[in-house]
């Protein structure tokens, strides 16, 4: 496997030596915090594993198995977030029968932290999505869908900040253009805004104003469109923005064996990941933080 390593060029926090006899735990150079980001996308109501006779995905997937895996990772590292990049709904009779109730209840049992809204999450109309909100113990983020004139108003935030062991993690959501993809009767007065402009706003707010240590974009705009070079995608987003550390994608059902490393608008690394669809895989990205000291901001080693 091809490995790209970016070795950090920083020195230890020797600066503290000048302070004299005081010693503070938080300034200890050995303090490393590991933040684990787990993610799914486009699960499409695939609650049960695929059957043994399935032509492509025999015996793969299944929410109850995912629960076991997530639990074991959380036991190993309590500083874990579980995120979903949209299209939770539609694809098995569970959705036709229960309208997404079971999907949201199970995601709540697995203690998902956040999800963004995919185009298929409008499949029972925006009212159908709203009706399932009481079953979700997790929250929704979308920065470029304006729900002000819909029932979803106040139920979707542009971003959310989560703090794990002192590490401030900002997560914002992005959704795909609905016009031509979803029936207007379904999304009603939901207003779509340009994802790149919104992402630039969000990363500025989260990095500069909120001083987040980690900025994550939860995106349902799609990984890359080879035949439509002008269509906005996660790769374009990564290149056109700054201060985003990780883009978790969805929509295109792209099976990435490992995260893609892109350069952002100021030449820094951004990770873009997507784990296909139907809950066949769980994505896992670990960020190791050295906290409580002045470190140059250039470069972490990336092992993918």
């Amino acid at each position, binding site marked *: 496997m091809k490995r790209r390593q970016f070795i*950090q060029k*920083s020195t230890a926090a020797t*600066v503290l030596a000048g*302070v*004299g006899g*005081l010693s503070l735990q938080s*300034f200890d150079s050995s303090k490393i915090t590991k933040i684990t980001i787990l993610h799914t996308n486009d699960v499409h109501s695939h*609650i049960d*594993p695929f059957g043994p006779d399935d032509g492509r995905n025999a*015996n*793969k*997937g*299944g*929410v*109850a*198995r*995912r*629960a*076991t*895996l997530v*639990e074991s990772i959380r036991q190993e590292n309590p500083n874990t977030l579980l995120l979903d990049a949209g299209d939770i709904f539609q694809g098995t*009779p*569970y959705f*036709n*029968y229960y309208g997404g109730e*079971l999907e949201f*209840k199970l995601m709540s*049992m*697995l203690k998902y932290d956040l999800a963004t809204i995919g185009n298929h999450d409008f*499949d029972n109309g925006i009212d159908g999505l709203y009706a399932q909100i009481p079953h979700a113990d997790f929250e929704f983020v979308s920065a470029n869908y304006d729900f002000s004139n819909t029932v979803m108003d106040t139920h979707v935030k542009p971003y959310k900040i989560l703090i794990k062991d*002192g590490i401030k993690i900002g997560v914002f959501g992005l959704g795909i253009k609905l016009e031509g993809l979803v*029936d*207007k*009767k379904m999304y009603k007065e939901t207003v779509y805004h340009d994802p790149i402009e919104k992402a630039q706003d969000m990363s500025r707010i989260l990095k500069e104003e909120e001083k987040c*240590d980690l900025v994550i974009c939860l995106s349902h705009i799609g990984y890359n469109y080879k035949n439509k070079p002008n269509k906005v995608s996660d790769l374009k987003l990564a290149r056109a923005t700054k201060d985003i*550390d990780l883009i978790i994608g969805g929509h295109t059902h792209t099976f*990435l064996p490992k995260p893609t490393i892109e350069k952002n608008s100021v030449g820094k690394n951004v*990770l873009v*990941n997507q784990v296909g669809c139907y*809950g*066949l*895989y*769980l*994505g*896992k*990205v*670990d*960020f*190791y*933080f*050295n*906290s*409580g*000291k*002045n*470190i140059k901001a250039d470069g*972490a*080693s*990336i*092992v993918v």
Partner: protein
Amino acid sequence: MTIKHTLKLCFLLLLFTCSSSQVSKIEGKRINIDETLEPNKEVEDFIKPYREHVNADMDNIISYALDTYSKSDGELNTAIGNLMADAVYDEGNEVFLKKTSEHIDFVLLNHGGIRAIISQGNITTRTAYEVMPFENSVVVVAMKGNKVNEMMDYLAKAKRAHPISKQLQLTLTVDDKIKSATVLGEPIDPKKTYYVATNDYLYNGGDGMTFFQPNEGLTILDYKIRNVLIDNFKKTDTLNPKIDNRFIKLKF
């Protein structure tokens, strides 16, 4: 507090504000969800009653498929697409006739709307849910022949096997121009009104199908495509759809 102490504190505060958490290492991987993972019992027990209820409905056998049919088998028309479009014609026409005393002229669906293959062997209600998980319903659009011609231009340009029913015949030249377009063997008359059955998603411009608007009138059949399939499968002992000549491109 002495001045020295105050200075020390200030320095510390300054340090504290400047200090940040910096990423030193990132590791990324994906983990398989497969049979090596023991299902979580609490989650499994929670799903069980939902599963039993759904499965009781889903697993009844309603027909039999002679072969496996996929939307990727065929260039401009596929056996599975032909099956679906013809089913919408047969089932939809009955309902439309009762409602309006008119006949449907032909059906247009979209290739992307076929969401699964039909596997050789028993067909259950579940098959219909897999092929058509969406809640879309049949609508019949009254449209002038000139709008039907716009549709033909769209199909010629799209070069995808969008399902059409057998009443429509579209032949493209080797360089993707329309060679002929007929409904029940007759050329499309720009002034005549045609009754075209489709689904509400396409009627509202889905897949870039803008030609349905404006139109001469709309009839909502209140009939889900999936229920069309279920009803049609129940009537058909053995499914044996074929790729035919309804939408083709000449080789030279």
